[in-house]
């Protein structure tokens, strides 16, 4: 819309409530916390140490080892979401948006139900299902003659993270599905009809017509997945504990941060190192978001329908 308009108070009015609440209750506290990363506990309370905490985080092999381990795990966690959750979400949305699909509302709701559940329940039920002791997963695999494939996935270093990532995918697939579904619905019928007549149907219709038109939504989902995954914490915490076993193989930035910031068991919380980790995480996420906002989103064309 037009650029130079005199006195555009309304912009301020539209922005003010959100900016005020958000700044006061989110940004100020968070800045206050991140600020802690420049201090350390000294003899006489808090002392300013500059970037020393970051030097420790990246310089001390114990800290940096844990950090890189968490970052690596996090990257894998994210990768699985990108490779499984989002394509599955898009596929489900595409199926659901088929014209006059019967029971679409039921499917949509059913697929979304896991997203509604609290982490406590998700952690419990999947541990129960995957448990070698109580027989659900082994029994079902037995039923199809694949009992030998069974392993205590959550307890093995090589599988645990992937298993948890897949559980998380199971839980959250409803989110990309909803967003893509909404985006697909906003494509005008006529455009799809034109494609039908042009003989562009099924998969190629999806790839050549719908996909380009929902790219902005896919972009959003990717960045939300990225941000969500690099902030993830709860699922790992409830199912593997703050120590993210076995042997830290499921430790991601969120659990690492939590453990450090708030402490765990005998380990006292260290808000200063915790804030340093949080700042590093924040920098990583911010970098990702900026790449998206300024590199990708600008290039994505949006279409008004």
């Amino acid at each position, binding site marked *: 819309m037009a650029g130079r308009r005199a006195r555009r108070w309304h912009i301020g009015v539209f922005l003010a409530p959100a900016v005020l609440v958000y700044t006061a209750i989110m940004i100020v506290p968070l800045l206050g916390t991140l600020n802690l990363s420049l201090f350390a506990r000294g003899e006489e309370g808090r002392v300013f140490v500059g970037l020393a905490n970051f030097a420790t985080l990246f310089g001390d092999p114990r800290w940096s080892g844990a950090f890189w381990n968490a970052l690596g795990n996090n990257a894998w966690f994210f990768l699985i979401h990108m490779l499984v959750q989002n394509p599955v979400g898009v596929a489900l949305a595409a199926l659901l948006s088929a014209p006059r699909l019967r029971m679409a509302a039921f499917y949509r709701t059913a697929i979304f139900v896991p997203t509604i559940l609290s982490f406590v329940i998700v952690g419990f039920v999947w541990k129960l299902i995957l448990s070698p002791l109580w027989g659900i997963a082994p029994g079902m695999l037995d039923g199809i003659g694949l009992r030998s494939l069974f392993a205590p996935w959550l307890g093995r270093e090589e599988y645990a993270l992937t298993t948890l990532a897949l559980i998380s995918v199971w839980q959250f697939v409803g989110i990309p599905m909803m967003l893509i579904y909404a985006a697909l619905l906003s494509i005008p019928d006529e455009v799809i*009809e034109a*494609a039908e007549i042009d003989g562009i149907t099924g998969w190629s219709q999806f790839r050549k017509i719908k996909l380009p038109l929902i790219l902005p939504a896919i972009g959003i989902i990717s960045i939300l997945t990225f941000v969500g995954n690099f902030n993830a914490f709860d699922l790992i915490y409830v199912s593997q504990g703050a120590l993210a076993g076995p042997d830290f193989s499921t430790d991601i930035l969120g659990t690492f941060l939590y453990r450090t910031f708030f402490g765990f068991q005998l380990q006292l919380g260290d808000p200063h190192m915790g804030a340093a980790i949080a700042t590093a995480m924040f920098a990583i996420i911010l970098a990702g978001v900026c790449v998206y906002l300024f590199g990708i989103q600008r290039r994505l064309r949006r279409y008004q329908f």
Partner: protein
Amino acid sequence: MDALTLTQVTKKFGRTQVIDGIDLAVAPGEFCVFVGPSGCGKSTLLRMIAGLEDVTSGQIAIGGRQVTDLPPARREIAMVFQSYALYPHLSVRDNMGLALRQAGTPKAEVLASTDRAADMLSLTALLDRRPADLSGGQRQRVAIGRAIVRRPKLFLFDEPLSNLDAALRVATRIEIARLHRELGATMIYVTHDQVEAMTLAHKIVVLRAGRVEQVGAPMDLYNDPDNRFVAGFIGSPAMNFLDAGALGLRSDSLGVRPEHLAISAQGGTIPGRVSHLERLGGETLSYVQTEAHGLLTVRQFGEHDHAVDGPVWLTPDLERAFHFNAEGQRMRA
């Protein structure tokens, strides 16, 4: 074998009957135009032929093949939408070429076809733009280009020229006529433009509230309408309907085309006053308010001037007038 056969086709939206038992046969290579007032169901019927709307009942056959239950992609048709329906993310070139590429046509050939179509529709300079950056008329031309590039057996056009300017409209109309001759394709064409209907059609189908009023060659409808509705609908400006009783005739109403009403300031059969004058250069339209017959339109060739609000006399050419009974049916001599 007919290129298109409709058998008792009906369509309901909810409880509204939009198409009401239409039978129609279109011969191969024929150019068939649907006309009718806005909302009479032209687009709906076209969409049913395309397979975009279910038929509520009835049968549709294309080229002798039952297609009632076939998806649009398998009906071998091309369609120009009233709302354009361009692919917003593709350039003009890709909008036109997509169907061909989908069908596996070699690249060079696709390029040649799109270039030819772009040339024909004066779109060459716009080939790399996207629909959002085009004007209304330009979009419409792209939509036409997309259809003709594919050269299918059956073309469906939904008011393809309504956003073009006069010059382009004439040019495109002639192009479509040429295309039709060249390809020998069957075309179904919806329009509300008299000139398009009269000039392009082999066969005009006049629709009214979902029913066929009359089918025939343009001049047949013009010269021999079955009823008052068709008579009034075909020909522009529309026919005048005079009160036959007031003229001492035994029919109910008398249809006289505007060009068959003589106008004179000196005298004539029907007195009236000029209420509005439209001077188009090559012709002049006078709207004359009369006591007995209401507002009548008079068309004169060339430039003429009549004082607005001045008294005039009109004289109908009874030889070329049509008689209708009270039900609106034509009373043939």
